[in-house]
């Protein structure tokens, strides 16, 4: 029997089978690519290496559109000898026919090929295949083979499938990256908003206990702090004093030099107070020009020394306004816990504030720029009562 027809049929089928197997192998290798955390250039270069492994090609290159640009740029190329830096000289530059081929794909969006490139520099065949992602043309794949008429329908079909896969892969990679970028941008925005919110929170919390003008604590801070200190003093039978301080004729400064000047005076006073007190002392701005100072572990005598020191310091302060020198004085009322009838710290504090106020008004009524203790004015009041 003549085997020849069978042999030829076998060889034909075998050749197709092996080409299909190679094509499937290339697709399988491509499908196994890890695209996460890799840039597009690397993925494209690897995809070309796979193609060269499985298709009998001599030279392959991929051209992509740059972002927001309308011209194709070569992003990767590979040669059969796997030596990108020293490709055979004929691939150093693409010939005009290759450029035409790319342009035709750009215009038509369809596969284009040339079967013989005349000229000494280059001979053989080339095929240019569009790379689509969704419906957009993202780039062009160029394959060269030194043999004439290499790109049969089957070959071209196999390469087209490969390019479609590659296009989808690049598209997914871009989506993944843009999603990553978007997530990181949104995260940054959120972080900024969060920082702003916590800064605001901190500020409002501070504002509620801090007097914005003088940066001293206000009543909201003073009462709980002082009550705690006083309770402790009562429990451990320690002395505890309270000073109420009021600037003399402060209204005149405001009226004459304006609120800006008044504010500056208040800030100066506050700074002086802060410099004079101890860490354990509790100082607060109570109202316009009224301040209160609680002195733990300090008896009336100690409080008097402190009051006198503060009075002198304040009196020595100077400001300049409208070419004139401004100064101010301070009247202080003092009391200590020992003067209180109540042993309950809440009532005791109310009582102490009233007592200190009385001592303060006594000073105001008697020429200002002075301190008085409640025990002293109580004595005076007793004498007055008796005199009546």
């Amino acid at each position, binding site marked *: 029997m003549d*085997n020849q027809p069978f042999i030829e049929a076998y060889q034909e089928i*075998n050749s197709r089978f092996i080409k299909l197997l190679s094509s499937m192998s*290339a697709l399988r290798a491509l499908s196994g690519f890890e695209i996460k955390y890799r840039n597009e250039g690397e993925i494209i270069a690897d995809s070309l290496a796979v193609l060269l*492994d499985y298709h009998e090609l001599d030279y392959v290159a991929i051209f992509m559109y740059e972002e927001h640009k309308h011209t194709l740029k070569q992003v990767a190329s590979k040669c059969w000898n796997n030596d990108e830096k020293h490709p055979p000289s004929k691939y150093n530059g693409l010939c005009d026919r290759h450029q035409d081929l790319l342009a035709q794909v750009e215009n038509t969006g369809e596969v284009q090929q040339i079967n013989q490139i005349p000229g000494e520099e280059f001979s053989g065949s080339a095929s240019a295949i569009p790379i689509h992602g969704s419906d957009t043309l993202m780039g062009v794949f160029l394959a060269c083979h030194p043999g004439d008429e290499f790109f049969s329908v089957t070959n071209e079909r196999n390469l087209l499938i490969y390019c479609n896969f590659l296009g989808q892969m690049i598209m997914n990679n871009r989506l993944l990256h843009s999603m990553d970028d978007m997530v990181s941008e949104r995260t940054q925005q959120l972080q900024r908003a969060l920082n702003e919110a916590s800064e605001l929170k901190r500020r409002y919390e501070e504002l509620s206990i801090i007097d914005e003008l003088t940066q001293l604590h206000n009543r909201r801070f003073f009462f709980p702090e002082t009550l705690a200190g006083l309770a402790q003093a009562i429990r451990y039978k320690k002395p505890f004093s309270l000073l109420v301080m009021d600037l003399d004729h402060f209204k005149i400064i405001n009226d004459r030099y304006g609120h800006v000047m008044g504010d500056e005076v208040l800030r100066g006073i506050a700074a002086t107070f802060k410099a004079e007190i101890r860490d354990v002392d509790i100082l607060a701005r109570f109202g316009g020009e009224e301040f209160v100072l609680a002195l733990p572990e300090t008896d009336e005598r100690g409080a008097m020394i402190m009051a006198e020191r503060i009075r002198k310091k304040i009196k020595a302060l100077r400001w300049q306004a409208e070419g004139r020198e401004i100064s101010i004085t301070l009247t202080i009322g003092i009391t200590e816990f020992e003067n209180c009838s109540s042993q309950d710290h809440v009532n005791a504090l109310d009582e102490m504030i009233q007592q200190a106020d009385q001592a303060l008004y006594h000073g105001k009524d008697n020429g200002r720029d002075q301190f008085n203790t409640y025990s002293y004015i109580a004595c005076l009041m007793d004498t007055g009562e008796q005199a009546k």
Partner: protein
Amino acid sequence: MTSLSTQTVYDDIRLTVHGMQDLPAISPMSTKLLSVIGDDRLSIHQLADIIRQDASLGGRIIGLANAAYFGQREPITSVEDAIFKALGLRLTQNMALGIALSGPFNSQVHCAAFDMHGFWLKAVLTANLAQSLSRLVRSDLRIDVDIAYLAGLLHELGLLPLVYLFPEQMNTFFTCRLTRHEHLREILRKELGTDQHEVGAWLAMNWQIPPAIVDVIAHHADPDYDGEHTLLVLLVRCCSRWAMLYMENGVWDGLPEETETLLEYTGIGRSEMLKVLKQQHVKFEAMESMAHELVES
């Protein structure tokens, strides 16, 4: 001899080898395939035995099994694995049959100076030696016995496409080698711009043969080779030299100079080695007479 443009010839050879999908079988055993193929009782091992003794068949079958399509994690290096893990009995049988059907590798017609029978014997002997010795190599050096066999079988694969594609030219070169006492490799370099080792590596890569074996094909003739597979290359070079000397003399006489390096490198004892050579002597004689019968019939 006509002087051709070496670059053009080089490009032509590369192109043809690159597109080469298979080669006719060379072993006298492969003709047996035609007689047993209709036999449903043909076992995988019988089929594997036939394929294993032929560089064209074995190389192609193992190469196909290594195509990414079959998704093997580790490269396939034995014919059995090619059948069991990737191709299956039917496909292997059909591929082998097709190759066998293409007719014997008839070098005698146009390339009388190429000793096909000797080529085949040397390949199988080298393969058997490499496989037996690889079992004795220190375990930490990790030489796979199947890779060693396949590397031995295919190490001179490159000669086949050259003889197949350029029988007349190769005939001249073989004759030249004898008359001028030049190495074939140098003649080929001069005349074609390439040599049997480079061509063999092209074909092996094209056939998806595992890289270790491609390295052996490309470098086994290079005594200074130092690369990823130095040990395997040294082993095959040594076995190939032994096989050649043995075929020339019919006895294990005058061990090649590489022997000492190999023994030192692999930790194989001299007595163990001699035992292997003795076993192979027995095997070889049986193989030769069987081949003789097959050719005669």
